[in-house]
C-alpha cells in the first residue's frame, strides 16, 4: 500500500538535495565551528553561508539570526527571553487563544512566575481583531506574540497591521512563522522577532531560528559557551543548519505555492460536496496554501483518521480522543464553542510533492470512511 502523506503541517519529507548536503557535513566535513583548525574553519564557513541565506530570505542581517533546536525553543526564547530582559519596563504579555502549545505554555509558565498574560480571542475564522489588540495594550505591556499562519485551521493574520499597532505603542512584536515561512511572505518589516524552523519545509527536524531585530535585548535561556553572539549556547548543528538553508533555497518558489493553492482549493471543494461538512478557517488568500480543515458532523475525528490510515492515508484531527489531554483542539474551540465541530475535524495538509491523483484517491477513501462511520453513529438515523 502506497502512503499518501497529507500531514505536512506536522512535519515533511526531507528533500533529497537537503539530505545530500547534510550527509556531506556529517561525514566529510564535520568540524566544530568554534575550532581553529581547518575542519573548524570549514564548518564556520558553511555556517556563515547558511546564516546569510536564511537572513536574506527574511530581509535580515546575518547577526540578527539565532539558530535554535527548532520552533519550540525559538518561541520559548522569544517570549521568555524578551519578558525576562525587559522586567524593568513591565511584566505584561499579550498573545492569542490560537497559538501553538509552546507559546501558550510559555505564557502559563510566565504567569506562574507572576507575569501577567492576556490571551486574545479570535473571530469565527480565526482572525485576531486589531482593535482588540490595541485595546488590550497597557503601559506595562512588553511583548505581543501572534502566530502568523495557524497550524490547525490555516488562518493567516494581517501581521503587518497588528505589528504596526505595536510599533505605534512602542511594544515589541513577535510572530511564530513556522507554518507560513516560504509559503507566504514574512519579512523583518512585519515583526521585531520571527520564529522559523526547517522541518515544515522539507528540511531536517531539530533545527530552527529566531530573528531578533538589532538592538533588542534578549535574555538567553541556556548557560554555556556563548554561541550565537552569546544568545544561544551549544555547539552549532552545522549539518542541520546547512540543510535548513538548502531547504529554504529550494522552497522559496512561487510556483510551489501556486500549485499547492490550486490543489488545496480542489480538495476543499470536493470534500464540501459530502453532506454535513464544514470548512474550518477562511478561504482564499488569507488561508495557508497547503491547509484544508473540515469538520464532519455525526462522526469523530480519530475514527476518521484511523480509518483513512488503514488505507495508507496520513491526516490529523482536533478531536479530544486523539490528544494526550483528552481535550478538544483549543484552536477549534476558540473559533466556536462547539465540541462536535472540534471532535469531527480532520486536517489535510499537502506539500509541493502532493499530486491530484493522491487527492482523488483520498477523496474516494474519505467518502467511504464517512459513510461507514455515519452508519455506526447513533447521531444519524437509519
Amino acid at each position, binding site marked *: 500500500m502506497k502512503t499518501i502523506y497529507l500531514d505536512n503541517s506536522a512535519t515533511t519529507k526531507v528533500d533529497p538535495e537537503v539530505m545530500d548536503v547534510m550527509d556531506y557535513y556529517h561525514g566529510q566535513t564535520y568540524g566544530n565551528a568554534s575550532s581553529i583548525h581547518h575542519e573548524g574553519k570549514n564548518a564556520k564557513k558553511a555556517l556563515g553561508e547558511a546564516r546569510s541565506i536564511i537572513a536574506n530570505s527574511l530581509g535580515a542581517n546575518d547577526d540578527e539570526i539565532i539558530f535554535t533546536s527548532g520552533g519550540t525553543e525559538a518561541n520559548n526564547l522569544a517570549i521568555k527571553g524578551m519578558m525576562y530582559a525587559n522586567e524593568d519596563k513591565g511584566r505584561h504579555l499579550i498573545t492569542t487563544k490560537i497559538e501553538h502549545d509552546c507559546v501558550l505554555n510559555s505564557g502559563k509558565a510566565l504567569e506562574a512566575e507572576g507575569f501577567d498574560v492576556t490571551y486574545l480571542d479570535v473571530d469565527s475564522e480565526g482572525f485576531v481583531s486589531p482593535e482588540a489588540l490595541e485595546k488590550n495594550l497597557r503601559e506595562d505591556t512588553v511583548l505581543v506574540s501572534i502566530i502568523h499562519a495557524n497550524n490547525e485551521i490555516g488562518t493567516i493574520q494581517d501581521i503587518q497591521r497588528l505589528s504596526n499597532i505595536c510599533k505605534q505603542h512602542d511594544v515589541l512584536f513577535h510572530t511564530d512563522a513556522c507554518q507560513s515561512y516560504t509559503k507566504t511572505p514574512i519579512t523583518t518589516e512585519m515583526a521585531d522577532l520571527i520564529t522559523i524552523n526547517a522541518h515544515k519545509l522539507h528540511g531536517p527536524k531539530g533545527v530552527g531560528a529566531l530573528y531578533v531585530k538589532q538592538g533588542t535585548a534578549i535574555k538567553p535561556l541556556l548557560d554555556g559557551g556563548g554561541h550565537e553572539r552569546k544568545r544561544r549556547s551549544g555547539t552549532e548543528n552545522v549539518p542541520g543548519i546547512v540543510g535548513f538553508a538548502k531547504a529554504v533555497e529550494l522552497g522559496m518558489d512561487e510556483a510551489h505555492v501556486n500549485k499547492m493553492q490550486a490543489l488545496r482549493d480542489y480538495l476543499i471543494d470536493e470534500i464540501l460536496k459530502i453532506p454535513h461538512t464544514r470548512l474550518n478557517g477562511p478561504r482564499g488568500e488569507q488561508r495557508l496554501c497547503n491547509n484544508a480543515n473540515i469538520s464532519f458532523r455525526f462522526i*469523530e475525528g480519530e*475514527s476518521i483518521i484511523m480509518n483513512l490510515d488503514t488505507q495508507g492515508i496520513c491526516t490529523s484531527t482536533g478531536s479530544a*480522543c486523539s490528544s494526550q489531554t*483528552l481535550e478538544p483542539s483549543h484552536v477549534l474551540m476558540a473559533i466556536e464553542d462547539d465540541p462536535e465541530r472540534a471532535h469531527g475535524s480532520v486536517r489535510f495538509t499537502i506539500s509541493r510533492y502532493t499530486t491530484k491523483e493522491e487527492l482523488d484517491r483520498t477523496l474516494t477513501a474519505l467518502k467511504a470512511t464517512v459513510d461507514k462511520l455515519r452508519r455506526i453513529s447513533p447521531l444519524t438515523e437509519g
Partner: protein
Amino acid sequence: MYTEQVTERFKKPRFMGEIQEADSTGEVGNVRCGDIMRVSIKVKDDRIADIKFKTYGCVAAIVSSDYLCELVKGKTLEEAENVTSKDVIERMGEVPAIKTHCSVLAQDALRKAIKDYRKKCD
C-alpha cells in the same frame, strides 16, 4: 498506538447496527465529552438473544462496544450485567492507558438497557 487486533476489529466490527423492534435500548455519553453509545438488545428466555451497537467516538470506543456485544451475546441478563469493563479490555488486548475510560461506557449503556428491560417486564 493501537494494536493490530484492535485495528482489524475496527475495520470490520461484527455487531454494528440497530435491532429493529428491540426489546430494550440503552444510551450513554454526550457530544461534549466525545463519546455516545447506544446498545439495543433482543431478550429470549432471560438471555441476550441478539445485541447491536451504535457508537459515536474514537477507535477504542467503537471496538470496545463491539467486543462487549460479543462477550454478552447468549448470556443471561444477570451474567451480562456482571461483565465488567476489565473483561472488555482483556478481550480487546492492549489499549492505550488514556483510552480505558471509553470501554466503561459500552458497559454502562448495556446495563441501562437491561435495567429498562426489567422495568418494562415488571
